[in-house]
């Protein structure tokens, strides 16, 4: 799978991409009914144009990017005092033990390149930095790869300290690499918009030095990965990294020197990879809930409505014993929550065909995870799951959320409310229904 795209660049078009809505909208047609009567081959052609012409879900992929990078950042900062015990060369799961296990399972971690203390600190530091940069969307195409390497390296180094949250983050880090997740809400998008404005004004494009420099530095890292591919990682991982690296280089060349068509082709290939990865992420979330729900149905405790009572009485998951005790006293309450959990999890994948019901269940799941964060003491797990759920949030809500955040930021920084950015306020009020089902 190749994803040629600029180093950290947002959508290569002159304008940022419109929200998800536009992509599947019948183009020029009056509505869905007209499309139903359309011949099959034209509908197929339109679908092909959609998946090659646009990177769908710009707001959804951006919120997923922000969610997971924030999760990982908070986790890494929280574990700073424990980083040696969890992942360091002399932790209980020692470097040598990890080496023996990885020789067997072939997981990828750059921490196997050296057992040095300094190397460990460097990798941890880069993982923190990559999380910050991915959060703000700086050179996302490159940074998302570094982020993935950081996640895989630390998690695969000590597989026995993770939980479900680490698992979902691990998968998301892999899939995000293939997406254009910085089309909105990112420094990349801001830069792209600035360049587009300059181009329209007839100014010559500014020389980009950071992109090529980053590319060269990562090229050195890639050589190291190839060199150590005997030690760690399966064969496809270096191949994927090479394809991404060469693709980015090719994109840079094509943008500068080639004609219109090769550029459009590479852009279409990047769209294709993005859209496929987006579908895979959505399907993964469905698989998570389907698996969680359908296995629960088979359990006697979920059937008799007491399942929730037990985690509330496990020592490892009761940071607030009084609160857990309180919730566990009411048999009816426990049963309602137990049954509700199963119903929501089993039903969720099917509700995707009905937008409003889907949104209601989405709210229910996010609230449940927020509850788990506090009640079971699993905030990182919960934040990771909420980030995954966010891929299904409706575009109008996300747009309103963005406008609301901007308003908050402006108020905080004491910027004039309507002076510098008058359009933003307009967005929030005119286009931004505040409710999820709006």
């Amino acid at each position, binding site marked *: 799978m190749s994803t040629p795209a600029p180093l950290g660049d947002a959508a290569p078009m002159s304008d940022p991409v419109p929200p998800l809505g536009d992509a599947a909208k019948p183009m020029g047609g009056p509505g869905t009914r007209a499309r139903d009567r359309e011949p099959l081959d034209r509908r197929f052609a339109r679908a092909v144009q959609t998946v090659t012409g646009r990177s769908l879900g710009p707001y959804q992929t951006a919120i997923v990017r922000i969610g997971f990078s924030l999760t990982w950042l908070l986790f890494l900062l929280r574990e700073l005092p424990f980083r040696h015990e969890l992942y360091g060369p002399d932790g209980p799961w*020692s470097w040598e033990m990890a080496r023996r296990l990885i020789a067997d399972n072939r*997981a990828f971690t750059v921490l196997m390149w050296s057992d040095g203390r300094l190397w460990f600190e460097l990798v941890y530091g880069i993982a923190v930095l990559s999380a910050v940069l991915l959060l703000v969307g700086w050179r996302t195409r490159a940074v998302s790869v570094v982020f993935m390497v950081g996640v895989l390296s630390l998690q695969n180094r000590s597989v026995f*300290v993770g939980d479900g949250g680490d698992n979902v983050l691990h998968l998301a880090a892999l899939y995000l690499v293939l997406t254009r997740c910085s089309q909105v809400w990112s420094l990349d998008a801001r830069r792209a918009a600035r360049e587009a404005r300059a181009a329209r004004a007839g100014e010559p494009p500014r020389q980009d030095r950071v992109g090529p420099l980053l590319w060269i530095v990562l090229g050195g890292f890639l050589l190291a990965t190839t060199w150590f591919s005997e030690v760690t990682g399966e064969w496809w991982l270096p191949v994927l990294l090479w394809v991404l690296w060469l693709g980015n280089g090719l994109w840079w060349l094509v943008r500068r020197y080639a004609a219109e068509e090769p550029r459009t082709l590479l852009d279409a290939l990047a769209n*294709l990879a993005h859209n496929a990865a987006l579908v895979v992420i959505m*399907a993964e979330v469905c698989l998570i809930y389907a698996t969680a729900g359908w296995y629960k149905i088979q359990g006697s405790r979920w059937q008799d409505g007491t399942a929730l009572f037990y985690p509330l009485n496990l020592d490892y998951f009761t940071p607030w014993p009084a609160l857990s005790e309180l919730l566990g006293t009411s048999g009816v309450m426990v049963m309602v929550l137990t049954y509700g959990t199963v119903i929501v999890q089993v039903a969720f994948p099917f509700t995707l065909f009905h937008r409003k019901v889907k949104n209601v269940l989405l709210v229910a799941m996010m609230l449940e995870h927020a509850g788990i964060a506090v009640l079971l003491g699993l905030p990182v797990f919960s934040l990771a799951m909420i980030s995954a759920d966010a891929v*299904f949030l409706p575009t109008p809500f996300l747009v309103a959320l963005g406008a609301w955040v901007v308003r908050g930021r402006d108020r905080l920084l004491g910027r004039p409310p309507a002076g510098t950015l008058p359009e933003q306020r307009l967005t929030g009020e005119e286009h931004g229904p505040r409710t999820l089902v709006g």
Partner: protein
Amino acid sequence: MDAYVEKDAADADGDRPAPPADPLTGAPGTSSPIPPADRANTGIMALSLPYQVVLAVALAVVGVFACLHLAMVFLHVAPSNTLTKQHGQAVDDWVYPEFEQNWKLFAPNPLQQNISVEVRAELAVPDGARRTTGWIDLTAQDIEAIRHNPMPSHAQQNELRRAVDFYLNSHSDDDTPSGLRGRLSEEYMRRIAMLRLDALPVLAGPDGRALTGEVRRVQLRAVTRAVPPPRWSSEKIDTAPSYRDLPWWPVTDADRPTGSDRSRTEAGR
């Protein structure tokens, strides 16, 4: 999935904002509207035939690959079935190690016991004799760290909990390790125990008297206590603890934590 995209799209039509000019802020701006599809400047319609062929091939490859990947992941999380009985190895080869996943969260039944790990150590005391400490509850240390902690560390919540799980899963009932993983899990348990013992200010004998000397051997045991049934339930469950004693293990230098920075500090908890 496509159906979802279209649903969202259809609903979004009503109040969809204009394309943002400043995408950081999500605000609409001065940018020109996206050109209609008839005059597409992106995607397959903007290409000439040879390029269209290349893109069509790529579309087919990406489509097949994505479907294959999802099928493999599905078979990985599904129960054992006709297909996985025949092609389980192919699924495993595809999924492990990077796409491994387990979503049986509290399923089919949630854990209904509290399992704690206790350790006692045999010390070589200065007069040349060997003395044994009382049982020290390592899990209790974790629980204390988790109490009233809004964000427990993996070192407190997962390390020991999953280590003992790993040990029990990779050993037979008579503590015979199964392969590499079994041997690794023994070493892991020993190293965790030594790390925790090292962090204690003092080791005491069963009589409560402080002992000094080097730890030569350790023994661990897993104590399982069933969660008592809820008040409204008529179930009778034996809540007496059951003990599983692991063998005495000699402690080698490889099991000892080196350097003071590695011991868990009170400040970090």
